[in-house]
């Protein structure tokens, strides 16, 4: 036997032995992620991917794979690929539109797990998870209502689904608490990622006289428009969404909301790893769990440029009496961090914008009601497109 053959033999025995030690000693978990937008969108998908990276760094046993920019009609095919070719143990589908395909995939692969983000359908091996920002929209509404000069406030919206209606209504409830005269106008762009559409919608809102804009779509386009107008001398207030967008509009962004998916993903993956996944698994994290964070960047909850204006704006509050908008925002934020039972924006009496009583006085909307909400509250103009 030649020398090199012996060497090869020793090496391969050593390698096989080594690899069996590694695989035997540690249980591995492979997670696939299906994203609706590009990971660099600086919005929804960007935030999810930060969360995924957080979990991957935290757990040495975790391996992840992503597929980005998956159209909602394509998700079934992509899920199949993740399960069959990539051998994923669990697949996360991070968009409302993937709901039906995720449920069907659960029936197709009963020995695998699926987690669907923002939906309401569950089964034995399909769970749901979500981190919602509606509380932050309420706080944005307080600030928008206090700052507006025209009493017209705008909102650029992607698609008419419960998540957005919930944001719009919370924003409107905040506005109403700060300034009952102000009205909220909504424009739909029918795109999660469409900087050109968001831009034109924002310009149209400004042309109609709206001077404080919030949005739910995945680009900083609305903030760029606000910044451009602010530079030209017309103060437009904007509220950042999902990622830290304040750098795009230092003269325009008042505040906003940040989403931290890291904790949520870590919790779910840890539960799965420790076999704690049960039928109808559901996780919904809000401000209390530090999933929803107030602010246009990681540093300040409110842009220092607008703090003085907010301290000067006085609001008549039932609970606190006469209070500055700044103090009210800080107080409400603290209450939200303590939990929904301490303060909930959706506390009755709440009427829809046609005058029907939807939530009785003193009652709080249940999370189930909020997850399927499909009416505008009082203060929002127009009606939800069909």
């Amino acid at each position: 036997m030649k020398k090199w053959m012996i060497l090869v033999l020793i090496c391969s025995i050593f390698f096989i032995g080594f690899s069996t030690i590694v695989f035997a000693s540690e249980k591995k978990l492979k997670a696939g992620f299906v994203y609706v937008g590009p990971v660099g969108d600086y919005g929804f998908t960007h935030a999810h991917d930060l969360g995924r990276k957080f979990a991957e760094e935290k757990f040495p046993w975790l391996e992840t794979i992503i597929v980005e920019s998956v159209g909602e009609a394509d998700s079934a095919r992509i899920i199949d690929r993740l399960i069959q070719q990539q051998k994923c143990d669990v697949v996360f589908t991070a968009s409302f539109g993937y709901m039906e395909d995720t449920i069907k995939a659960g029936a197709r692969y009963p020995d695998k797990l699926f987690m669907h983000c923002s939906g309401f359908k569950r089964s034995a091996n399909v769970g749901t998870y979500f981190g919602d920002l509606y509380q932050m929209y309420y706080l944005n509404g307080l600030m928008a209502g206090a700052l507006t000069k025209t009493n017209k406030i705008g909102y650029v919206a992607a698609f008419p689904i419960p998540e957005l209606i919930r944001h719009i209504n919370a924003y409107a409830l905040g506005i109403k608490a700060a300034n009952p005269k102000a009205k909220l106008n909504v424009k739909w762009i029918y795109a999660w990622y469409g900087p050109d559409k968001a831009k034109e919608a924002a310009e149209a809102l400004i042309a109609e006289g709206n001077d404080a804009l919030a949005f739910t779509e995945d680009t900083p386009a609305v903030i760029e428009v606000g910044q451009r107008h602010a530079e030209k001398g017309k103060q437009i207030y904007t509220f950042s969404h999902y990622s830290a967008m304040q750098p795009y509009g230092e003269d325009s962004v008042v505040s906003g909301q940040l989403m931290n998916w890291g904790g949520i993903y870590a919790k779910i993956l840890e539960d799965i790893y420790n076999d704690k996944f049960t039928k109808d698994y559901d996780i919904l994290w809000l401000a209390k769990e530090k999933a929803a964070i107030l602010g246009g960047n990681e540093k300040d909850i409110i842009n220092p440029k607008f703090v003085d204006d907010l301290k000067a704006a006085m609001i008549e509050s039932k609970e606190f009496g006469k209070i500055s908008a700044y103090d009210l925002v800080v107080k409400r934020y603290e209450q939200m961090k303590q939990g929904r039972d301490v303060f909930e924006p959706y506390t009755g009496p709440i009427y829809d914008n046609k005058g029907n009583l939807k939530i009785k006085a003193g009652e709080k909307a249940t999370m189930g009601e909020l997850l399927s909400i499909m009416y505008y509250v009082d203060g929002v103009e127009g009606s939800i497109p069909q």
Partner: protein
Amino acid sequence: MEDIIISTLQRAMVAGTPLLLATTGEVICERSGILNLGVEGVMAMGAVVAFIVTMTTGHPWLGVLAAIAVGMAFSIIHAFTSITLQANQVVSGLALTMLGLGLSGMLGKPYVGKPLSIKMEDWVIPYFSDIPYLGKILFSQGPFFYIAIFLAMASWFLLERTRLGIQIRSTGENPKATETQGVNVFKIKYLSVIIGGGFSALAGAHLSISYSKSWIEGMTAGRGWIAIALTIFALWNPGRAIWAAFLFGGIFVVQYLLQPLGISPNFLSMLPYIATLLILLLISLKDPKKLNAPAMLAEPYKRGER
């Protein structure tokens, strides 16, 4: 109300700029008798190249030049197949669109969603920008707006008032007669297709580095097809293309204003095509000669054949 009108017209100018650029290019190209359905693809290539070059070098004008160069080179594919090989121009143009959309998506993958921090300042024309109404609408726009208007007017002058323009037009009308006059028809056709490609790429560059300041696959969103429809709508005249393009830019902008009235955005995005069909129908019914379409449009020219 006044604010709404001024702002709408101002935004219409911005939204119409890429349409005008692409339409002007397509007019020159079709006037020489070559139908180029590859506008959408060339536009996408222009957009992605302009974005990548601007992002890496920090110079937007370098990005614009690179986009034009790539657009011209890219459209040579169509020129070669349709002029030298005399292949079916519809097929070749469609292939160019698919190739351009696919290739741009592939090249731009690492750049998706990255915002461009470089700003192109608006060119505010002194004195003129102080004119009430018009000043805000016409004289304080981004650089691409002025470039588009200038190029459209220059193209009109080129086609209608210069020797080269006559050669281009007569190539599209009757290449055989043109050739007997000692004009190199193939050269003229190649030139027109390449110029058209440069225009389309410039339109794409406007979209990615000035209008949305970001790149995403498929961001041209059918604007190339609207440009082809507009070429017919403008009856192959760059002068008419100016107001036609801004009219359709206005339609894009106005859909957000009409939303509260319950008008479907899908219906509004159909409007450019409906309008094109209508104008074709009306003119054909009334006086087909006025249609002014190049007689040999999309007909391959074979030297020495009858």
